[in-house]
Each structure stands twice: as structure tokens, then as C-alpha cells.
């Protein structure tokens, strides 16, 4: 019988299989950032162990780093201690590290792909739930916990029980103005934040094939918000074109060998999935969240739901609580919700293509004086590329702030935060209570909607902006 993409990658990495025991899986790439449990390195030290393959391990600083005045010492002592601990651990154990100030520094899930380190058919792990991003290349990539980080550092393997597989099939053409972010928000609204529990999602169908690598990364990134362990897209010519020539991509005859192998990875026609969700791309439109989890999303043309719309008591209570936290009244058109902050960035939407979309909307326009707009590139390379294309000038002339690379306001571990009661339209991945700062309120949106919202000061799709004079 045929196998799925996920099963092929799994099978190719089994070091040891024994009845009644988890499979021991080899890990091709282990990514590390400063919040990746320094305790894992402590554990190694305590037991006199070493990092088995520092050459398959890569660290960067992203979660805590400031996006302004990066030449100065980090002001917050807790953040500084985490960064200092990472630097000391990497030096002691020989792990390559891209520190603040290095041209390769950035969000770990932006840096891996742009270096060409993430390739089809690989296993990729990181002590970070958004590791699912790397599945866009047809890699099996997932977040792990403290003990598992230590396990991978020491052995380059992990004992794992097999996942189930779910196909998310999106066929047809995405309407203009509808992006990967809208697809993922629609998927999560459909299956719920627990709908993917225990599954690896494989995104399939003509709408997925038409997405760029950046779009596929956005999609796979958010898989965890549906509760899934990982998300994947089968590699194709788009994948190969993105990879070719990148610093760590194969070259010469290695390239040909690799591509030949990668072409064997897509799910076989006669393979079966444990579950399938089918979505008609032509029905999709820009999505935004109104509540406090990523599954509480609707088309921007819709209205804030009422607790009376709930299918059961659990959902009714959830809607009530979300409306109270978000300070929203049922029936309010989503497009009338005012915001005071717009955040563009994160491992979800902090790549060059995202910034181009934002610049296209902002070019020749001004952001609303009532709105603070932060544009934070996902990596130093993205920042430099944007500057080479003159995007920074567009942002600054429109009245937005152009920042240094990092996770920034996605999770507010650095100084970029919402104040209590502030409301953002954010291209990030989580609208949990307090995620962007205690008491802050978050609406998840695509880069295009973020940019249009910056102009009007309320949740807006670019199609609803008046043309540039």
C-alpha cells in the first residue's frame, strides 16, 4: 500500500524499531533559541555528556532580543540572563550561534529556511511549538519539551510514537487578496484549536500548490494552533527553486541526487489518511479573529458572534468570556473594530514576501495618526533585503516604525508590548489573553489586512481602501 509524505519521512529516519517500544528516530536538524530550556544544557553538564552532533545543531537569539538600540546591553535582567546563558552554553558545547548583531541572526524559523538548512524529507526539531513552520519544505518538523531537547543534544535521536495523518485539501483558486494566513485561519476556525490533536497535517490541493514557499511556511507554522503536532506540504518545483543556491543547500551532483530523492517524497496516490478536511478555495476571503484563541475567527465581512450562536454550553461560555476580555459587543461588524496598534512580523508573517505585501498597500498612503505601527523583519537578512528594495522607505514615509529583527510583539518577551486595554491587529499566531502584553487584545490578521488596518485604524481589507490619488 502507498505511503503518505509524513510516513515516508518517518520510515527513512527509524534508527531502531522494537515491538512495544517507541521508534527511535534520527533528527537531521536541531534548532535552538535562548528560551529553549537552558536546563537541557545543565542536564548534559550534570551527567558529563556532550552534544553528539553540534554540526546538526544551530542556535539563534530571537525571543528576548530588543528591536531597537541593539548595540546596547539588553535592559531586562531576566532576558539578558537567558541570552547570556545561551551564549555560554553554545561556546561550551560547540554549538554554532548567530547572536544579536550577526547578519544571520533572526527568528529561528526564518533563519533555518533562508540558510537552506531546512530541506525536503528531513526531520527538524526545536524546543518551540512553531517548529511546524519547516514542514513547508516537506520536512517532518515539530516542537519538543525540555527533556527531549536534552535527549536530542546528547543522542541526535528521539524515541517517538507514530502520529496519525490528516489531509487538509484546498482545491481551486484563491480569490485575489486572500493569502496563506487567511487559509490557515479558516482551517482553524473550521476544525478548532484541538482538531489536529495527534495528527500531522498535510496541506494538499491546487490552492496549496500555487502558494509560494513563504505562504506554505505561514500555513505550516499555524498547524500547531489547530493542535497538530506538525504540518507539511509536499516538495515540488517551487520548493526546489527556493532552495537552489542557498548557502546550505546541496550543490553540483549532490543537488541532482537530492532533487531526485525529493521527487519521491510526495504522498502516493493509493495512500490513505486517517482523516481529511476539504476546503473550496474560491469560498475563502480575508479572515480575522475576534476572540482569544486562533479558532475564534471569521471572514472580515462578518460580525462579532453572540453567545446565543453557540452550539453547546461549553462554546457559549467560551464566547462570553472571549467577548468580555476583548471588550466586544455581539453583532458589531468586524470591519468597525478600531485598533491602536498594528504589528507586522513573527515566524508566521515576518518574511520578505509579507513585507512586500505590506509595502504595496502602504505605498503612497499614510497610517492613521491614532495607530502605532511596528514592522519587525523576521531576520537581519529579511531586513537587509527589504532595505535593498526600498521597502523601509515606504514604511517610514507612511508613518510606520521599521525595527530590527526578532520575535518582538508576537509574545512580548522583549520591550515591544501592548499596554493593558490596547488592541492590535497582528500578523502573528496567537491571540491568547495577555499574549502581546498583560491586558492587551489581539486580532490575528494577514499582512495585507494589517497594512490596510494601519491606514484606516479599524480592521480593513485592502480592497476596501480608496485608491491612492
Amino acid at each position, binding site marked *: 500500500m502507498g505511503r503518505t509524505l509524513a510516513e515516508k519521512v518517518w520510515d527513512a529516519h527509524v*534508527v*531502531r524499531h522494537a515491538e512495544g517500544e517507541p521508534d*527511535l528516530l*534520527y533528527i*537531521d*536538524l536541531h534548532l535552538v533559541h535562548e528560551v529553549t530550556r*537552558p*536546563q537541557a544544557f*545543565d*542536564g548534559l553538564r*550534570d*551527567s558529563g*555528556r556532550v552534544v*553528539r552532533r*553540534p*554540526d*546538526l*545543531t*544551530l542556535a539563534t537569539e530571537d525571543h528576548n532580543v530588543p528591536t531597537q538600540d541593539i548595540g546596547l546591553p539588553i535592559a531586562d535582567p*531576566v532576558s539578558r*540572563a*537567558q541570552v547570556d*546563558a545561551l551564549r555560554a552554553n553554545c561556546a561550551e558545547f560547540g554549538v*554554532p550561534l548567530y547572536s544579536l548583531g550577526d547578519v544571520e541572526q533572526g527568528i529561528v524559523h526564518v533563519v533555518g529556511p533562508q540558510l*537552506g*538548512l531546512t*530541506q525536503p524529507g*528531513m526531520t527538524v526539531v526545536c524546543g518551540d511549538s512553531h517548529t511546524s513552520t519547516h514542514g513547508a519544505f516537506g520536512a517532518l518538523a515539530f516542537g519538543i*519539551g*525540555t*527533556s527531549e531537547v*536534552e*535527549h536530542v543534544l*546528547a*543522542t*541526535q*535521536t528521539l*524515541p517517538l510514537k507514530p502520529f496519525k495523518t490528516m489531509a487538509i485539501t484546498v482545491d481551486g483558486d484563491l480569490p485575489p487578496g486572500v493569502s496563506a494566513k487567511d487559509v490557515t485561519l479558516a482551517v482553524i476556525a473550521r476544525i478548532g484549536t484541538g482538531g489536529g490533536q495527534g495528527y500531522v497535517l498535510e496541506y494538499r490541493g491546487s490552492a496549496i500548490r500555487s502558494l509560494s514557499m513563504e505562504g506554505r511556511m505561514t500555513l505550516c507554522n499555524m498547524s500547531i494552533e489547530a493542535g497538530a503536532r506538525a504540518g507539511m506540504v509536499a516538495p515540488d518545483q517551487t520548493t526546489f527553486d527556493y532552495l537552489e543556491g542557498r*548557502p*546550505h*543547500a*546541496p550543490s553540483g551532483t*549532490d*543537488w541532482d*541526487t*537530492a532533487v531526485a*530523492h525529493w521527487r519521491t517524497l510526495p504522498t502516493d496516490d493509493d495512500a490513505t489518511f486517517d482523516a481529511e478536511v476539504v476546503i473550496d478555495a474560491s469560498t475563502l476571503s480575508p479572515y480575522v479573529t475576534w476572540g482569544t484563541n486562533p479558532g475564534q475567527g471569521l471572514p472580515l465581512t462578518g460580525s462579532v458572534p453572540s453567545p446565543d450562536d453557540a452550539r453547546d454550553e461549553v462554546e457559549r461560555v467560551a464566547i462570553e468570556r472571549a467577548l468580555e476580555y476583548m471588550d466586544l459587543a455581539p453583532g458589531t461588524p468586524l470591519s468597525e473594530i478600531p485598533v491602536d496598534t498594528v504589528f507586522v512580523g513573527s515566524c508566521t508573517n515576518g518574511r520578505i514576501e509579507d513585507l512586500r505585501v505590506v509595502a504595496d498597500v502602504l505605498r503612497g498612503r499614510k497610517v492613521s495618526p491614532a495607530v502605532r505601527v511596528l514592522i519587525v523583519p523576521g531576520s537581519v537578512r529579511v531586513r537587509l533585503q527589504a532595505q535593498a528594495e526600498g521597502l523601509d522607505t515606504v514604511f517610514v514615509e507612511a508613518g510606520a516604525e521599521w525595527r530590527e529583527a526578532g520575535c518582538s510583539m508576537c509574545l512580548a518577551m522583549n520591550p515591544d508590548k501592548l499596554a493593558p486595554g490596547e488592541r492590535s491587529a497582528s500578523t502573528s499566531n496567537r491571540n491568547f489573553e495577555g499574549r502581546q502584553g498583560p491586558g492587551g487584545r489581539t486580532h490575528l490578521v494577514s499582512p495585507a489586512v494589517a497594512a490596510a488596518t494601519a491606514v484606516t485604524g479599524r480592521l480593513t481589507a485592502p480592497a476596501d481602501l480608496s485608491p491612492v490619488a
Partner: protein
Amino acid sequence: MESFVVHTGTAVPLRRSNVDTDQIIPAEYLKRITRSGFEDGLFAAWRKDPDFVLNQPAYAGATVLVAGPDFGTGSSREHAVWALQNYGFKVVLSSRFADIFRGNSGKGGLLTAQVPQEVIEALWQAVETDPSVPVTVDLDRRVVSAGEVVSAFEVDDYVRWRLMEGLDDIGITMQRADQIGGFEASRPSYLPTTTAVT
């Protein structure tokens, strides 16, 4: 990991049920960057009460915790195990443990020994009558004894084997080093390394 066959030490009677991991180690301690030093966070809220059992000099230096049912519920934080170990505990006895906590304990080398609630009651009485009474936990024979109290305890076979051999998950995987090495030798040459390229 140290191997655990027989342990003898004094015990603390913790007359509480449903001790969740937020009580074992509150969230504010999770920001720390080390794996050691969590002993000051252990039961931090309860220890503010001078009468709390851990604050009583008679129980200083104890290594066995005798707790009520449903010990270790709630958040999956591995810090709960570290806090107990950092404080000096080698064994927790209870009539029922939360699954994730028990799993984390097995990984970390803390023995969670399950005995019927009447044995817990008898142990409480024994160590309250005489806090210096030695409690012996024999993992090989699966027997706990303190003075006149003697009882068998339950522990997962696989966890018992690992503890007695002194093997954590990593230790077990490291026994497969030959297989890992063999797999590594077969990996295609085009796969990337993170070493800087120029």
C-alpha cells in the same frame, strides 16, 4: 543517573490530597535558567506558614515524602520533579499519582511508589509519632518499611528496571550508540550541516 536499589531515610508526612504542580513549584520560579536550585520554590506558598510540616525542625533532612492521594496533578512542568529532588527527596509515596507527573519523575530519577491509602495513614502515624524513624524503600523487593509498618508498593516494571540500572531515557538511547552510528554512516552526503559556510 544514579542507580536506585534500596534507599533508607527519614520521611515527611504531607497530609494533603490533590497536590498540584502549581503548589509543588509556582509558575514564578519557571523563568529560571538552571535545573538546580529549585528547592526554595518547593511548596513555596505553603512554606510561608511557619507551622507547615517542611518548616518543622524534626523533619529537616528527610528524603521520603509521604503524600495524600492524587499527587502531582495539573501543569506538566518538569520543574516539579526537579524541585522535589533539589530539596533532597528521593521517593514520593502516595496512593495515586497524576500520569504526567509520574512520567516526568521516572525520566528524572525520582521514585514514585504507590501504596494503598491505609498504608499512607499508617506511615503518617509512624513518622508523626517518631520523626526520626528510618523509612526503607526497597525497589528490588518493592517493599517499603518504617518500624512496624511494612507494605508492598507498586511501580511500573520498565521504570523500576531503569531506576535500578540507573538509566534515564538518554542513558538507554546511548546504549544504542552503535545503531545510531550505523544510521549516521548511511545518511546521504547531501544533507546539510550547520557549520558556517563561506
